[in-house]
């Protein structure tokens, strides 16, 4: 930060870092950010609440964002969502009691060529089938490395 002529350009990075550390941007993270940037809590909150990937509420260890935009809608994102809901016992916006999973929607994540698609902790998984969804959940539960994401070029 000291190197930057305009430290405020780093605020989203810092909020994401704090989120990484605390799990979400809690009040302690907020007050740290206020001190770092010399900004008021209101100013920080205005930013934090604007972005889809900055969480101001507690979230699970694995945050699943299911794409529900047009192409994934055509390709049956609803069955992916229903499967996840059934397996995890939660609805959109909820977190499992064990704190492992949170289920959230996402706007088109730019993988319409591998639809239906979702993100787990900022990694993208596409061409989802029930088996693949189960494999991904299994890996998350076992704390192992998640299965290869679909982010390389075909």
């Amino acid at each position, binding site marked *: 930060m000291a190197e930057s002529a305009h430290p405020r*350009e780093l*605020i*989203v990075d810092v909020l994401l870092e704090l989120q990484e550390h605390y799990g979400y941007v809690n009040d302690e993270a907020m007050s740290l950010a206020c001190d770092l940037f010399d900004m008021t809590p209101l100013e920080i909150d205005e930013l934090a609440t604007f*972005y889809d990937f900055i969480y101001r509420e507690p979230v699970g260890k694995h945050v699943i964002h299911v794409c529900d935009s047009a192409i994934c809608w*055509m390709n049956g994102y609803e069955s992916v969502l229903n499967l996840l809901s059934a397996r995890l016992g939660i609805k959109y916006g909820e977190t499992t009691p064990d704190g492992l999973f949170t289920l959230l929607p996402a*706007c088109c994540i*730019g*993988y319409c060529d591998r639809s239906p698609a979702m993100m787990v902790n900022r990694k993208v998984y596409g061409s989802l089938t029930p088996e693949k969804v189960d494999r991904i959940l299994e890996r998350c539960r076992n704390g192992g490395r998640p299965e290869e994401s679909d982010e390389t070029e075909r």
Partner: protein
Amino acid sequence: MSDMVDQVLFRNRKPDRIATLEEYRAGGGYEAFARVLRENAPREVPKIIDASGLRGRGGAGFPCARKWMAVPEGGPFPRYVAVNSDEMEPGTFKDRVLIHADPHSILEGMAIAAFAISAEKGYIFVRPSYENAARILEREAERARDAGFLGKNILGSGFSFDIIVHRSGGRYICGEASALLKALMGKRPNPVKAPPFPTDKGLWERPTLVNNVETLANVPHIIRNGPDWFKGLARTPTGSGTKLYCVSGRVNRPGCFELPMGTPLSEIIEQHAGGLPEGRRFKACLPGGASTRFMTAEHYDIEMDFDSLASVGHRLGTAAIMVFDDRTCLVGVTLNLIEFFARESCGWCTPCREGIPYVRDLLWRIEHGEGREEHIPQLREMSRHLWNAYCAFAPGAASPVESLLTFFEDEVREHISQKKCPFGGR
């Protein structure tokens, strides 16, 4: 298949990995940058780009060189280049594929643009779901720096330029140029109306270029091969270059294809995207992402370039072709798109903040069998109101709605008369 066609932006595309700096250089990479540093005055570069006819690939199709030349020669320093890799327009994924194919073409394009306007710093603005792309760009920028193509006094020319990858917190409106600049500065990214234009007062009130990833990736190729070569790549007389078309929806092989600008829609769908599945018929497409109008089978053979589409009242947008077949409910599609726009509205102005949820509500009722005759004129009226909004977001949202009513009024009416979705909600 695509390999029948000359590949420019995708010449180094391969399965599963990016082109390395060495591979990029083996094909002439960074020669264009080295040449302009050696032979050209900064102000000569936009002239070459102007002669090539390159138009912005981010959605609006604004002539690239005209934007570069708008940076005042006597304007203040430091100056900036901001690359728009937000790519949140539904249906669009070309920039992602391009970054994963040949990242150095983007870095070189940025460096040349920076030289042209005497900028010293470049930002690449990347959305959260493209974290992998952000990492690639960061790593490859480091390699370019090690090879002497970025940093201080590049190739002994006295010109210095460096690149920073900026991660977005994720919000569609950040792709709008003025909102993008505010996001980069750590401010709340509500759009601001020009003037002043970013080329006069952009980042920190200094002249700033905002260009799309694909736009800039064309620049090194134009410099190396000449503007006439670039013009000659297009299939249409007023078009130029190639275009990355993303095809998704009801086709057998969705994907991103590099084809001559102006390739007919039917050819893109059938020869490259594998056509529609057996037994399905093309009903309509959105030719350039969610913010464009539904285009019917009447234009199935249209040449996909800026001017051809404009001449029939459509927009090329991001050239993200979303294909819908005869069994897909377009009321359902439009409702889905409007839900996207309702969620992503930045909330700054009333027509958009209040109007889009209202449109969503009307469409929801129609799709779910609760529609009434009077909802049709109400929808028309509301989508007209969206044009009074503060930025181009809301008119974009109005496009699918207005065109649904213009071209598929019968389909909408069927929902109302049958009191249900005739397609069973699909």
